[in-house]
């Protein structure tokens, strides 16, 4: 048993995948035989899936073919209801980037302020505690009414859902910078700005990045739901549109792609977090 844990876990992963795909394939395979002969009128009405006994649930091969098709032509545009998955993803990523970017711009400076001033921290705490647990989608009607633009409303919803973890983590990270590091800065007569950037920011960076990583995860979860509501473009709209088309194959394909993009976003932030983490 000299095989490394990496190899062993990869083999196991592959095995799980194969078993899952096989089970999926068998479960969705058509059952052509059996049953009493159908009334031709009825069969005509129900369409091919009912008459062949084949489920509307696609098998892994269908999904694979669909995925391949999407990947080959990700950016086609045949009008509002038929765009390539790449374009839809692009819209979603752009919205997340905009909402998340705005949240970073607000949450990190405000978190600094809260972390450095116990007074501000206590003053804002009730607001944060009440607003934080609100589902971001509950803001949607309010956003639609005040902003009057569905695209901007989606961005607002992303903003409001990503702001809290970043705010809370930044405040916590800044407030728990070790006193001795601050004392070092004080005895060296380091000014407040230089202290913020050379002592507090690097010391709090790992905690801030943790908050940012949680936020990007939430933002990516919420964008799908938000786009289902606002419609028009985006991967969330794509999923809803394909459900209306009863194309389960496309829905499954979209789920897969959403997962992949979410993973990439998370890994980017994880890598950034690793870059600013310091061993003690």
């Amino acid at each position, binding site marked *: 048993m000299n095989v490394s844990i990496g190899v062993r876990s990869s083999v196991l992963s592959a095995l799980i995948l194969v078993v899952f795909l096989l089970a999926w394939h068998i479960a969705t395979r058509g059952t052509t035989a059996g049953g009493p002969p159908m009334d031709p009128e009825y069969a005509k009405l129900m369409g091919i899936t009912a008459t062949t006994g084949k489920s509307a649930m696609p098998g892994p091969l269908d999904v694979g073919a669909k995925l391949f098709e999407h990947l080959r032509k990700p950016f086609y545009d045949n009008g509002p209801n038929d765009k390539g998955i790449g374009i839809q993803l692009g819209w979603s990523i752009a919205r997340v980037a905009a909402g998340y970017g705005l949240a970073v711009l607000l949450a990190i400076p405000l978190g600094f302020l809260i972390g450095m001033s116990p007074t501000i921290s206590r003053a804002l705490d009730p607001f944060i505690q009440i607003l934080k647990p609100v589902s971001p989608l509950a803001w949607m009607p309010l956003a639609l009414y005040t902003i009057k633009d569905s695209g901007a409303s989606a961005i607002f919803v992303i903003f409001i859902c990503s702001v809290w973890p970043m705010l809370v983590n930044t405040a916590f990270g800044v407030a728990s910078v070790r006193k001795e590091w601050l004392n*070092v800065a*004080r*005895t060296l007569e380091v000014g407040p700005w230089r202290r913020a950037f050379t002592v507090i920011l*690097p*010391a709090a960076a790992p905690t801030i990045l943790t908050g940012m990583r949680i936020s990007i995860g939430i933002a990516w979860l919420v964008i799908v739901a938000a786009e289902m509501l606002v419609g028009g473009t985006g991967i969330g709209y794509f999923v809803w549109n394909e459900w209306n088309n009863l194309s389960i194959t496309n829905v499954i394909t979209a789920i897969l792609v959403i997962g992949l993009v979410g993973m990439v976003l998370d890994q980017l932030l994880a890598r950034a977090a690793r870059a600013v983490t*310091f*061993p*003690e």
Partner: protein
Amino acid sequence: MNERFISFEGIARRYPAPDGGTSTIFENLWLGVPKGEFVCVIGHSGCGKTTLLNILAGLDAPSEGVVLVDGREIGGPSLDRAVIFQGHALLPWRTVLGNVAYAVSSRHPRMSKAEVEEHARRFIALVGLQGSEHKRPAELSGGMKQRVGIARALSIEPKILLMDEPFSALDALTRGSLQDEVRRICRETGQTVFMITHDVDEAIYLADRVVLMTNGPGAMVAETVVNPLPVDRERTDLHKHPAYYPLRNHLIDFLVTRSRTWRDAIPADHDPRRPPVVRPSIPAPAAAAAASETAVQSEMLRNIA
């Protein structure tokens, strides 16, 4: 002026107590430190020695009284007073060079990057860490970290070096070699040093003068003891000197009993403004025996007298 280069003038430090009143760490504390002297403050935990050092560093403010340095009242932390912290307090995301350079660039904001680095390297070499410039604190041993702390403090070329039990977290061997180094550097540069310790042997080896503080709360400076050992003392034959045991016994005696009982029987002539200066005397037989020994030792004795 030089006799009171650092001057604590009737300072007090009080904290609000949980019961609503105030608890007094110490009050009406007067103490002068001459320029170029190495002063150690010893006392039990809780006697307020760290508070005293923090006030001198400017990290804490006295509730009453003032502290003068070089004739001027201190109003906060200053680059003239470098602190070597008990836990090394290095910035873990910076390298050795980065930590020292941070202090250098704080001292000399107009220096170019290359000059800062050059200056920092000189002090890293001074504490014997050349070759480790690019290591991070996590890669260093406890002794090496404290060396970086010393290099950082010295690199700003302060008027006063403040040390808060800087070696207490180190093993005995490392502590010894760092004490040697600190003593060498401070002697070479004529540095004024104010150090807190509870280690009697450390005080005997390093200090020119030892300040004895009674137990807190309401701690007082009972006396200051002039170290009778020769200035060019060696760690290895410290204990052979006839004044060594009288000094050591005097300090231990203070820590074990007098720090506790002193306050119950304050000498009638005790003036808090001028704590008595004590020179532990060499017992007569030992002095006689020492005098009959080698010329070198009698020379040493003359130095003491």
